[in-house]
């Protein structure tokens, strides 16, 4: 697909124009950070950020979401019968998605959109969305996307990739949804052929700016129990306070809880993001808890992302290298270190004591 050149004026005009066809979400500066929000008619996405504080996960998968309503009024014909909430999604465009955060959507889709069951809430929101990416020109110290399945110019999960070069923007359509978006914006100016090589240079420079990496090539070769019984989990988990920040900020963490909330004689059944860091996550009604100890919960988080997911889907790790969990962890637990430790762990030659599981 040819590259489209967009100057500042047509960028503004195009974003205004697409708002008649799409609900447009984009990054807006709030206090010290950028956050995705639904843009007002006269509001423009602010592309001047390294990355948003949170990924756009919650646009497709809100932190709290009403699934059903019910009545407990015996006079109601439908008393105690769950009613689906209206779930019709008008087209949405999410502008300014970094490639790492974009890759999270196809990863999470494997959980919500399966041959047996479709999570109607997630799938409808996802299908209604067009993902407009923004390539990264430089990395933060915690980024490791190039060893986590994507890169600063990565395209997986995107419909359009936008590359900023000074005041000019270049748009590359990746899918049919992307073509439709560019058409709706009225962007038609083809970029000069010479731009291609310039973009290649920018891409190479951006990739070179990423200094951190993970090694994942041997995760699949080890058995689940080898890694599960590895001696380092208690030590790695020692400083963890189970605050759940890592799961909250993770673009690929998908677990949720379901709760009923009654007000008077009516109520809602809702789902809320949940966290494997919480002891309640697995707490049986009997009082038994299969992941009672903190280190078991920490182990679950890393084993899920770096072993269980790897084995189940054979599509790499359940991590996109955005680095948020590393930046925001209050006790400096670093997934890169743990991933490399798991990858290089040699159970046969380990002389350490294994912890009780």
């Amino acid at each position, binding site marked *: 697909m040819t590259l489209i050149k967009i100057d500042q004026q047509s960028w503004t005009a195009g974003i205004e124009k697409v708002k008649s066809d799409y609900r447009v979400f984009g990054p807006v500066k709030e206090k010290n950070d950028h956050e995705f929000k639904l843009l007002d008619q006269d509001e423009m996405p602010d592309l001047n950020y390294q990355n948003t504080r949170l990924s756009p996960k919650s646009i497709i998968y809100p932190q709290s979401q009403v*699934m*059903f309503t*019910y009545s*407990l009024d015996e006079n109601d014909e439908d*008393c*105690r*019968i*769950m009613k*689906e909430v209206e*779930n019709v999604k008008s087209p949405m465009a999410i502008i300014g998605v970094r490639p790492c955060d974009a890759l999270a959507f196809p990863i999470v889709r494997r*959980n*919500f959109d*399966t041959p*047996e*069951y*479709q*999570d*109607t809430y997630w*799938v*409808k929101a996802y299908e209604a969305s067009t993902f407009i990416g923004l390539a990264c020109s430089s990395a933060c110290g915690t980024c490791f996307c190039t060893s986590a399945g994507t890169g600063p110019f990565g395209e997986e999960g995107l419909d359009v990739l936008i590359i900023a070069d000074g005041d000019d923007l270049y748009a590359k359509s990746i899918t049919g949804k992307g073509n439709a978006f560019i058409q709706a914006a009225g962007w038609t100016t083809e970029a000069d052929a010479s731009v291609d090589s310039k973009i290649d240079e920018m891409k190479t420079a951006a990739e070179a700016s990423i200094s951190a990496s993970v090694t994942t090539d041997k995760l699949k070769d080890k*058995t*689940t*129990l080898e890694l*599960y019984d590895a001696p380092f989990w208690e030590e790695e988990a020692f400083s963890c306070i189970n605050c759940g920040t890592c799961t909250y900020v993770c673009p690929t963490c*998908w*677990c*949720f*809880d*379901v*709760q*009923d909330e*009654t007000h008077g004689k009516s*109520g809602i*059944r809702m*789902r809320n993001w*949940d966290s*494997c860091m919480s002891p309640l*996550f*697995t*707490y*049986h*009604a*009997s009082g038994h808890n*299969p*992941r009672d100890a903190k280190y*078991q919960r920490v182990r*679950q988080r890393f*084993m*899920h992302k770096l*072993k*269980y*997911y790897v*084995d*189940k889907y054979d599509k790499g790790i359940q991590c996109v290298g955005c680095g948020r969990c590393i930046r925001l962890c209050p006790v400096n637990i670093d997934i890169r270190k743990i991933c490399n430790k798991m990858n290089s762990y040699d159970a046969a030659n380990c002389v350490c004591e294994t912890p009780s*599981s």
Partner: protein
Amino acid sequence: MQNPYLPYPVRIDEIITETEDKSLKTFKFVFLNPEDEEKFAYESGQFGELSIPGLGEIPIGIASSPMEKGFIKFTVFKTGKVTSYLHAMKEGDIMGVRGPLGHPFPWKTLEGKNIVIIGGGFAFTTLRSSIISILDPANRPKFKDIHVIYGARSPGMLLYKDELAAWADRDDINMNITVDGTDDPDWKFLTGFVPTITEQKAPPGNDDTYAIVCGPPIMIKFTQPVLDNLGYSHDNIIMSLENRMKCGIGICGRCNIGKDLVCKDGPVFTLSQLNEMPKEY
């Protein structure tokens, strides 16, 4: 697109108090929309999510058999928020059921085989479903010898007492009903723990013999070495697990044991499979 979280509305048609301590009740549900019963086509070993608006959902094994038409049954132990509320509900009340969920016992594999059903305490519900299915005249010829070893603390704590007595009178099923102890002079069945009775009554293991084991962890712990001694291969020992669940369809993420989700990939696993999995249950 079908919303997999939407429960089928059901009416509580009958409530039976099963045990002398009243901690276990069987709920018989009738679907409000008859077509939902067809959608709920299940096999023995699967479970459902019982849904009470305002309280939540609980995963419970299906105690009725697919050979029984017009209703579904669940036997529920009163233990948490939802089950306590359910125990206080009345016949005629409306609630919801989702399912069927999870994998059943491997009935195709079990065809032509001897089956030893070993159950303890209140983990006898999907085993009751299995026995009803096996003993149905349409199914009984598909299986060879059927042994059942079922134990409870006392005679009053056994589930499905009338059915147990009726099965004990039959010659096409070998019933071994046992209690840990009793001072009832009229008790006509066995006394002793399930592992001991298994040692005495279960047939020896071979390729053609499968054991289905459901019970409290302590029973399973002491029954497994007995089955090992009897020569059962771990591929031929079938178990059903429980973990905390919400969605029941493999999406919400909490019931995993390694890469497997108890709700969707289980709850039925062979002991061989469990040997390769973390003990997070």
